[in-house]
C-alpha cells in the first residue's frame, strides 16, 4: 500500500473536520489533498467506499467556495462516474482501485475518474446505468471517455462560475 499522505489542508472552515465520519481503519479510501484548493485525489477500493468518497468531494468543493448548487451537481456526477467505474472494476478479473481526480482552475473544474476494468456500452435496457450516464452528460459541460490499455478514463468538465476557487488570502 502506498503511504497514506498527511492532509496538509488549512482547516477549511469549521465543517470539514466535524462533519462526516472519519474514515474507518478498514476503509480503503485514500485521500490526497494538496491543501491549496486546486487538487483532490481520492482512491477507492470498491463500491462500499463511494459514499465516503462522495462526502470528501462535497467537503472539498464546499471549502473551495463553490455554490451549493454547483457542489451538488458535481457530486452527483462524480457519484455516477464512481459507481460506473467501480462496477467495471468489479467485472474485471482483478478489481483494481478506482481513482478520482478533481482539479479546480476557475472557471473550470474537471473531475476525472479512472478504473482498470472494461468499459461496456449501456445495454439496450440500461436501467440505472443509463440514467447515470444521462445525468453526467446533463450535468457537465463536456464528458470525455478514453479507453486505456487497461481501463477507462472519464473526464467531466464543469464551469464553476467566477467566484469559485478564489483563494481567501
Amino acid at each position, binding site marked *: 500500500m502506498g503511504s497514506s499522505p498527511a492532509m496538509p489542508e488549512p482547516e477549511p472552515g469549521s465543517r470539514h473536520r466535524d462533519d462526516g465520519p472519519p474514515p474507518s481503519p478498514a476503509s480503503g479510501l485514500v485521500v490526497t489533498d494538496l491543501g491549496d484548493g486546486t487538487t483532490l485525489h481520492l482512491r477507492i477500493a470498491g463500491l462500499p467506499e463511494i459514499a465516503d468518497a462522495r462526502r470528501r468531494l462535497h467537503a472539498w468543493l464546499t471549502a473551495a467556495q463553490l455554490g451549493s448548487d454547483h457542489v*451538488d451537481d458535481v457530486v452527483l456526477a462524480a457519484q455516477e462516474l464512481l459507481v460506473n467505474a467501480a462496477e467495471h472494476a468489479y467485472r474485471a478479473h482483478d478489481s483494481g482501485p478506482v481513482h478520482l481526480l478533481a482539479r479546480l482552475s476557475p472557471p473550470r473544474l474537471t473531475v476525472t475518474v479512472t478504473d482498470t476494468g472494461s468499459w461496456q456500452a449501456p445495454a439496450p435496457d440500461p436501467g440505472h446505468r443509463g440514467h447515470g450516464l444521462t445525468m453526467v452528460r446533463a450535468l457537465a459541460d463536456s464528458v470525455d471517455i478514453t479507453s486505456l490499455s487497461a481501463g477507462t478514463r472519464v473526464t467531466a468538465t464543469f464551469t464553476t462560475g467566477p467566484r469559485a476557487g478564489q483563494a481567501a488570502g
Partner: protein
Amino acid sequence: VSAADNLDGTPWVTAKRVGAALVLAVGGDVDHATIPEVRAGVAKATAGDAQVVVLDLSAVTFLDSAGLALMVNLHVERPGRLRVVAPMPIARRPIELTGLDQVLTMFDTVTDALAPGSPALKGVDG
C-alpha cells in the same frame, strides 16, 4: 447540528395510510450503497392494497441513479397510481435531468399529491 446527522446518510422509510392512499416518506441517502435497504422498506410498506402511493422524498439527502431506478419500478408496477413529492433540488434535480419528471407525476407537497383533482387520481378512475 441536525445537518451532522444527515451526513451519516442512513436511509429510512415510513408509511402511513391516508384514505385510499399510502404515503411513503423516504429520507437520508438513497444511493447504490443504501438501495437494498430502501427497496426492502418500500416493498414491505407497499405490500398492501393501497390505490395510490405517494412517495415523499422531502427528507432525502442524496439521490442517485439507483434511487431513480427504484422509482421507475414503482411507477411500472402501478402505472398512473404513483405520485412523487420532491420539493428539494437534491431529489428533484436527478429526476428532471433524466426526464423522469415527464414520466412520473410530480408534486411539491404531500397535500397537493393527496388533492382529489390531481392527475394521478384521475388515472385511478380510468
